[in-house]
């Protein structure tokens, strides 16, 4: 069964059930089904057909969910872009994947760039979808290896990479989730991650698979501690899934632990970065809900998981990432290529149904996928996460290639030299750019952020930009990154060459 048939089947079973609920609005399965059909006809008239890509640009609203469903019904793949993605970057994505159409919601439609690419249609998602007779159902058959969606992620060379996910990939993950959680129509899934982040696939499609409800959390509320805690209670969330940063924030600043855990909360899932063990202990003491640590890069979605057991709470390090799931085979490859045994470390390799089709515009992924993550094999054959084997960092669960950020900042005419580092940990982690201005430059913090926003995903725009007369160097002439990190907590005055 393909990914989009989940909503069609749920609407047939109970059209009055809520598919979407929460601060962003409400949509019943019958409405979602009908509106997706109406929009699918409109997209088809604009030229969208099987095998095409369609950019879906907007906030975490019902209209965007309708658009994703409409694209899938035509046998096409959707490419999500967040509301705060600038028009220039959305156009870059559209050209990169040769999108047949760009759908935009709200005032974004009027801000679509001129250079989307040849023959790319523009579709306004604010036009009403309710008028007229019930539409002819649209349910184009797809093969398991047809693309369902493309997620753009950070690339080290300065060009974003589109991770191509097939219906088979997505369904392997969704079906595992539904079975593991024993999801039912009574469930209410929180949706903390943005639609461009693969965590959201669980929230949306595990809910749709069983006719349950998903509650999208607007991006601007994603790190508002009190509001997140209120939403967990008020929306009667049964399954919560987010990066650990959000849960830590709710515990640390939002008063989550000050009131008893709601009875309706039955599972808390986290992924994207290690959750500090102290907060796992607090969470376990607060709620009887199951706690699950999920692991997997965008390229493989979730490929291992671990359910927290009481013995884990005595650890002095994060809980394991666990063992293979979703029908995948995973193992740790030692430097010499051999499979690592208990006690040994190696790079985590993944093979199986969740491994992506490939990056857009590049040769298909063949064989097992090397994650770039170093793991240690535990006595029971499961894995502990150790770290990265390259310059990729994670900021609040998002992958950031420091080299990509440096490439983009370095392309600004007023920048002579630049080094990008991260400082702080967990919630306090910041992406910091140190810039040596070119002689006579006038560009300030905002000019450089604006420049970054045109080329980088929002989460890759530096949190801080500092100006320095020069960058510290190591003995062999490389930029001394650790010295730069050391200056981030002290008050070093901004320096510019006159």
């Amino acid at each position, binding site marked *: 069964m393909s990914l989009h048939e989940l909503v069609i089947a749920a609407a047939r079973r109970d059209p009055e059930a809520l598919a979407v609920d929460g*601060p962003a609005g409400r949509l019943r399965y019958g409405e979602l089904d009908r509106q997706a059909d109406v929009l699918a006809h409109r997209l088809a008239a604009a030229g969208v057909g099987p095998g095409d890509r369609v950019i879906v640009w907007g*906030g975490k609203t019902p209209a965007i969910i309708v658009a994703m469903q409409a694209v899938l019904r035509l046998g096409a793949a959707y490419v999500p872009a967040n*509301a*705060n993605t*600038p028009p220039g970057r959305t156009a870059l994505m559209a050209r990169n994947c040769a999108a047949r159409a760009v759908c935009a919601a*709200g*005032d974004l439609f009027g801000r679509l760039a001129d250079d989307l690419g040849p023959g790319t249609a523009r579709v306004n998602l604010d036009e009403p979808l309710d008028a007229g007779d019930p539409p002819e159902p649209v349910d184009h058959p797809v093969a398991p290896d047809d693309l369902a969606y493309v997620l753009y992620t950070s690339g080290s060379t300065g060009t974003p990479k589109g991770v191509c996910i097939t219906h088979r990939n997505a369904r392997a993950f969704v079906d595992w989730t539904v079975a593991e959680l024993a999801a039912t129509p009574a469930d209410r899934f929180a949706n903390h991650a943005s639609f461009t982040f693969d965590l959201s696939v669980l929230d949306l499609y595990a809910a749709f698979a069983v006719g349950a409800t998903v509650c999208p959390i*607007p*991006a*601007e*509320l*994603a*790190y*508002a*501690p009190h*509001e997140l805690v*209120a*939403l967990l209670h008020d929306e009667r969330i049964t399954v919560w899934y987010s990066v650990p*940063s959000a849960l830590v*924030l709710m515990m640390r600043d939002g008063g989550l632990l000050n009131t008893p855990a709601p009875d309706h909360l039955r599972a808390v899932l986290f992924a994207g970065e290690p959750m500090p063990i102290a907060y796992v202990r607090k969470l376990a003491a607060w709620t009887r809900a199951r706690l699950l640590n999920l692991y997997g890069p965008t390229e493989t979605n979730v490929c291992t998981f671990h359910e927290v057991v009481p013995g884990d709470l005595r650890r002095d390090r994060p809980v394991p990432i666990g063992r293979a799931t979703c029908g995948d085979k995973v193992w740790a490859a030692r430097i010499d290529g051999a499979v690592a045994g208990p006690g040994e470390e190696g790079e985590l390799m993944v093979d199986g149904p969740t491994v992506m089709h490939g990056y857009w515009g590049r040769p298909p992924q063949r064989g097992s996928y090397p994650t770039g993550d170093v793991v240690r094999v535990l006595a029971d054959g499961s894995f502990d996460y150790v770290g990265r084997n390259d310059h990729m960092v994670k900021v*609040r669960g998002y992958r950031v290639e420091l080299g990509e950020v440096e490439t983009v900042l370095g392309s600004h005419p007023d920048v002579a030299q630049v080094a990008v580092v991260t400082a702080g940990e967990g*919630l306090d982690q910041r992406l910091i750019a140190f810039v040596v201005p070119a002689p006579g430059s*006038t*560009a*300030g*913090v*905002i*000019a450089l*952020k*604006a420049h*970054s*926003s045109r080329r980088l995903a*929002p*989460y890759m*725009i*530096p*949190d*801080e*930009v*500092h*100006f320095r007369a020069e960058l510290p160097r190591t003995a062999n002439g490389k930029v001394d990154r650790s010295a730069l990190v050391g200056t981030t907590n002290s008050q070093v005055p*901004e320096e*510019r060459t006159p």
Partner: protein
Amino acid sequence: MTQPLSQEQVTANLIAFVRERFLSGDPQGELTETTPLLEWGILNSLNTATLIGYVREELGTAIPLSKVTATTFRDVRSISAMLYEAGEAASA
């Protein structure tokens, strides 16, 4: 009950806060009422929460969840207008 701030005062407070907290003091003086905050990454999901906290603690206005949108947080002017309306509604 303290006198509610005028919209100009709210705007000035917001600009000062964003400069100080999110722009290293804005040494080049670039921030204006219409600088696109979300689009240029001056506000992101994490520090938007900091701003909401500041508004609640320092300006005494709780922002309703339904008002926390990309449209209302686009720039200082739109945030200020939303806060002013919320204040009017609360005192009406």
